[in-house]
């Protein structure tokens, strides 16, 4: 998440909008954005409806066994078609900002 912020200028220069999605309520996202200085969009899916629709629900994986999203990244073209997907095999391993920038080449 921090890596994305560090490379947000590069991503936006390529015309890419970033939106982060989790079960966190808006207040939690507001606090996180303020604390870490994140300026991209954070969306709240508290009942995990969208996370379920994207088949990313990780049951009872939260700190108190809440259902959460498994980490994943999708790059969509302006028509809403998926052009690149990253479903990590470990939740400590996320796409690097370099990989995200590389992925934007799939749009051209």
């Amino acid at each position, binding site marked *: 998440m921090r890596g994305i912020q560090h490379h947000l200028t590069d991503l936006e220069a390529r015309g890419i909008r970033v939106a982060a999605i989790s079960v966190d309520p808006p*207040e939690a996202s507001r606090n996180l954005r303020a604390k870490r200085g994140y300026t991209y969009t954070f969306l709240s899916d508290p009942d995990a409806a969208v996370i379920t629709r994207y088949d990313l629900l990780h049951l009872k994986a939260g700190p108190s066994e809440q259902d959460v999203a498994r980490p994943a*990244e999708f790059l969509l073209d302006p028509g809403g078609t998926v052009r690149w*997907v990253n479903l990590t095999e470990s939740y400590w391993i996320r796409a690097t900002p370099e990989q995200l920038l590389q992925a*934007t080449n799939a749009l051209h």
Partner: protein
Amino acid sequence: MATDAKPGWNWLLWAGFVLSVIAFLSYFAFFVEFPSTRNFPWANLLLFAIAAGLLAAGIRRAFRRPQSYRGKIFGPILAGLSTLILGFFVFAIFVAARHLPSSAAAPRVGARAPDFTLTDSDNRPVSLANLLTGPVGGAAPKGVMLVFYRGYW
């Protein structure tokens, strides 16, 4: 008389143990923030290796020069605890974290991303259509990166 001198404090053992604890905690508190130290925890494994070296040196001198250094009993205990910490670290990073759902039905390349409307951090509704059409840097967006994350930070 030399025989009355008490064995000295074996700081290598304590340094090794404390470093093992730091090697464990620093991943979650610090190194996880940077892709280069998060995706593979080489910095933490390096700290564990240094800790093992300190503990080995401390135990060695406790057994070779017991008249000078303490630690024949608690040295192996600290080394055992450090090994447990390392084992837990390896389990947490390389085993437990890989128990993820298969997400076999997640949208694939070429598929249409399912539409949604969610609330942003200012409590405003935002749809996927809004994300796909709202300007980025004054121009129509060329793409949208959706980043799903676990939350509860």
